[in-house]
């Protein structure tokens, strides 16, 4: 089963700082790369996603940077806020026709006030 490798496992950032989470994938046929945000007691929620035909996508304070040659993509959270404190997961499609996702192991982000 294809895997995505996510780092770091945990991250502590001061309010207003930049949070950066990285993800590496294996299969060059992947065509969709999302980031999910999960708060305690809740299910993951789609935060932002990118297709491999672009190198960057920005939505508000959240940006995905995509490096196809390195098979890596990263999430940047600008002006990090305490409300951003959550667990973040990268994901990539599983092989097969059902368009399922395989998730990274998660990064627990803490933004200090």
């Amino acid at each position, binding site marked *: *089963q294809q895997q995505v490798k*996510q780092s770091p496992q945990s991250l502590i950032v001061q309010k207003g700082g930049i949070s950066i989470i990285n993800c590496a994938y294996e299969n060059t046929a992947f065509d*969709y790369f*999302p980031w999910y945000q999960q708060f305690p*007691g*809740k*299910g*993951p*929620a*789609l935060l932002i*996603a990118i297709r491999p035909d672009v190198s960057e996508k920005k939505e508000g304070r959240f940006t995905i940077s995509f490096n196809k040659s390195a098979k890596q993509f990263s999430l940047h959270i600008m002006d990090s806020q305490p409300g951003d404190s959550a667990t973040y*997961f990268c*994901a990539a*499609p*599983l092989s*097969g*026709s*059902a*368009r*399922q*996702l*395989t*998730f*990274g*192991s*998660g990064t627990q982000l803490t933004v200090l006030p």
Partner: protein
Amino acid sequence: DAGVTQSPTHLIKTRGQQVTLRCSPKSGHDTVSWYQQALGQGPQFIFQYYEEEERQRGNFPDRFSGHQFPNYSSELNVNALLLGDSALYLCASSPQGNYGYTFGSGTRLTVV
């Protein structure tokens, strides 16, 4: 517009028992997927249902089975529960062939 609804929210079962978890998809979604999320880990794909049939299955034993009803709601059944089955079970729905999954808040299963 209700999102994905899962029931129950919490459940405690004894090893060897059987459990059924339920999921109602988001309005307009016809595909339901189930994931298992162990503490401190990412969700792991169990299986997906579309048109009342299992479309794809992850690396889970046959003790895990499911069902989808004509109204697109779904059940996850786990037989012969093991301590290692303790986890958060997540249901995600989407329009068929679309990556845009909406997750429910999950059912926290504890096996003792």
